[in-house]
């Protein structure tokens, strides 16, 4: 057996629990409602998880370093509003709107990262501050009103499809694949795990902890910017009050997928499974027409149950 293979196998087996839980859930839903297991519906599930998925991939970087980013939802709103401002028909090329949005997002992330590393303020506080600041900025920039009238070349990013696959899903795939490779195969990726696993030891090994952490926050912010663009394109407007509490869903997806809040453990594959579990659950309960009160109860129970099942398998 090749060196890397054994570990990948082991990783898959340790992931097995969650995958199994997901398969069981999907099986159950297929039995309960005929509309679940259709190709069309599965594509819809993928489209529905794409924004949360992009955010969850981003926050995985930060969680792996042992930090947290609570500002995601507000950054989504801010970047959506800003990008939408550059996306009115016939003004600028769409690529500019996209670039501006991503830059605004990574700018927020960079600020988070610099205050965390240079100012030594707890990530919870820094990103909580950014949560309110970015929301305030989104409201100020937009005057509290949605920015609409967007060009169709922009909105296609949210609503379009290429060979039948929705563009948001394609974006998520590219982002997730690139992040997986980056985290598992490159040097900075390895450093992210090391910093999260034992910051002092990473520092004593000559790793530039400041740079590594700042990078993680900036990437996370940039991906939040991307998510903001996709969201604005999907709902065809930049909403200053969009994305409220999205950070919670994104962190939940990562943590369900086995990424530890104390850093150093986890990865993109798990995060995607986590996002998928949440997406399947939302979709399935809607399809089964479960009343919205009970949906919340069932959703909470199933998520805790799936993670418990996953944990049990690992021990």
């Amino acid at each position: 057996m090749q060196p890397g293979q054994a570990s990948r196998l082991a990783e898959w087996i340790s992931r097995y629990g969650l995958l199994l839980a997901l398969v069981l859930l999907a099986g159950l839903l297929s039995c309960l409602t005929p509309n679940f297991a259709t190709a069309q519906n599965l594509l819809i599930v993928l489209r529905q998880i794409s924004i949360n998925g992009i955010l969850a991939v981003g926050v995985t970087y930060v969680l792996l370093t042992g930090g947290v980013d609570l500002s995601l939802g507000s950054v989504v709103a801010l970047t959506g509003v800003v990008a939408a401002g550059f996306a009115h028909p016939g003004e600028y090329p769409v690529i500019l709107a996209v670039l501006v949005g991503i830059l605004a997002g990574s700018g927020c992330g960079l600020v988070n990262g610099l205050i965390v590393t240079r100012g030594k303020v707890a990530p919870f506080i820094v990103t909580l501050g950014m949560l309110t600041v970015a929301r305030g900025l989104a409201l100020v920039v937009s005057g509290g009103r949605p920015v609409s009238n967007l060009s169709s070349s922009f909105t296609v990013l949210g609503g379009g499809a290429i060979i039948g696959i929705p563009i948001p899903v394609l974006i998520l795939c590219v982002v997730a694949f690139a992040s997986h490779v980056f985290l598992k195969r490159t040097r900075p990726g390895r450093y992210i795990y090391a910093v999260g696993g034992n910051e002092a030891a990473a520092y004593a090994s000559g790793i530039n902890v400041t740079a590594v952490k700042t990078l993680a926050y900036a990437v996370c912010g940039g991906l939040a910017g991307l998510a903001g663009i996709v969201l604005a394109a999907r709902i065809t407007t930049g909403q200053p009050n969009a994305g409220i509490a999205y950070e919670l869903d994104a962190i939940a997806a990562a943590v369900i997928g086995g990424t530890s809040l104390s850093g150093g453990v986890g990865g993109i594959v798990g995060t995607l499974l986590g996002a998928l579990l949440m997406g399947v659950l939302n979709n399935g309960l809607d399809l089964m027409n479960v009343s919205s009160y009970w949906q919340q109860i069932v959703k909470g129970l199933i998520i805790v149950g799936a993670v418990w099942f996953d944990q049990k398998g690992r021990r």
Partner: protein
Amino acid sequence: MRSDVRTTEEVESFLRIRGLTKAFPGVRALDDVDLDLKPGEVHVLIGENGAGKSTLMKLVAGLECPDSGEISKQGRVLRMRNPHDAIRLGIAMIHQELMPFRQMTVAENILIGQEPVQFGVWIDRKGLLQGAARVLGRLKCAISPERLLGELSLAEMQLVEIARALAQDADVIVMDEPTSSLSKTEVAALFEVIRDLQQRGATILYTSHKMEEVFEIGDRVTVLRDGRRVTTLKVDDASEEELIQAMVGRELTLVSSRAKGRGAGPLLTVHNLSRKGGFEKLSFQVNAGEILGFAGLMGAGRTAVVNALFGLEPADRGEIQIGDRRLRIRCPQDAIRHGIGLVSEDRRRLGLVPQMSVRSNLTLANLKAYSRRGFVDVAAESRITAEQVHSLGIKSAGQEQPVAFLSGGNQQKVVLSRMLLICPSVLLLDEPTRGIDVGAKSEIHGLIRKLASDGLGVLLVSSELPELLALSDRLLVMRNGRLVAELDPERTSQEEVMGHAMLR
């Protein structure tokens, strides 16, 4: 003693271990081990790194549950689900890995679980401080019970942990390498306490890689190899060679030749280096090809010096030169860039990334050499890992095993190996053989010597005087943050070194 009437058999074996087996994924750590501990004896457990000593001790102290087998005390089979049960049954343990509550005071650390209380819950603070002071007094240790544990040096923390076990008033005390960070004086104080405990009938299960301790404190000695008991002997009947041979299962020639290589010019020069609260006005130089030893008592400031040279806690004033270039070392990155490597005494905090694999831990400080265009070259990494695992004898269930699951000594080898891989020109070693078994220690000594003869400068800090005397080309003695003597290891004695190190 808890019961007065005992049958002869119970007197024979106070603690009786039968068929104890414990497996972890990929390794059988303990395999059908039988052991009898007599009341009032100090029973020493020895074996190579990863032989299963800690595992056995953890089972005795209820920290892990055996796969099969049983432990009985005074004829009663013990059913322990957790350490709490063990403590209730009068079994205390000093752990190999330190278990400090860094944010709590020394007194709270010592009496955790045994706090004097009023009305069942209300902590009697005065009683707490007095109780802690009493235990520390038994160890002749001057640490103030009010200090925060996080401010202590590693050795001081180890003393606090010893005090914690003593405070539990147990009649079986399991000691897993309690002296690994201690220097001679503290060891002597501990041994006095052990003898006192023995007098009162307590049984001690003790392990250490320092052979002289086996002979000094042990009554009987059991050798473990690959999770099995090889033999149990009376210490008086055993010889060092015999024990070592039983441990490693073959004849072993300890490297002892002192192929001295006197340095070819200064490599690292330190002038008037100071750090507040650590050390003051140090000037010395390390020559290429030379091993410079640093001796001193606990808290003398040796760790502070190497940490400063490596940029972990940079010096406030003074000069550091490599060759004839003056450097500013503000962080470990600077140090590594200039070819300085450090093996820290605190492998848990400053060494290991616990969840990462052996392979990733090994290459962490020099990953650049094993990557191309930013991508890690796993094949090259595996090759170098295999090499290091072989040359240092790192025992693990494969390169991919998280380093957290390695035995203490093997973890130390990983940390050491990481620094060797950066190919430094100056190597700072702070207690480099802490927790490493006799065989491997002698190999590592050989390695250090070889590195020096290849032209490296080595700065060696150790609390084991025999190691210092055997390895160093020159020996500096520190006391209270100052250099007080320079000695020639070949013409001095342990007594003379201690004389300089202690306050006169």
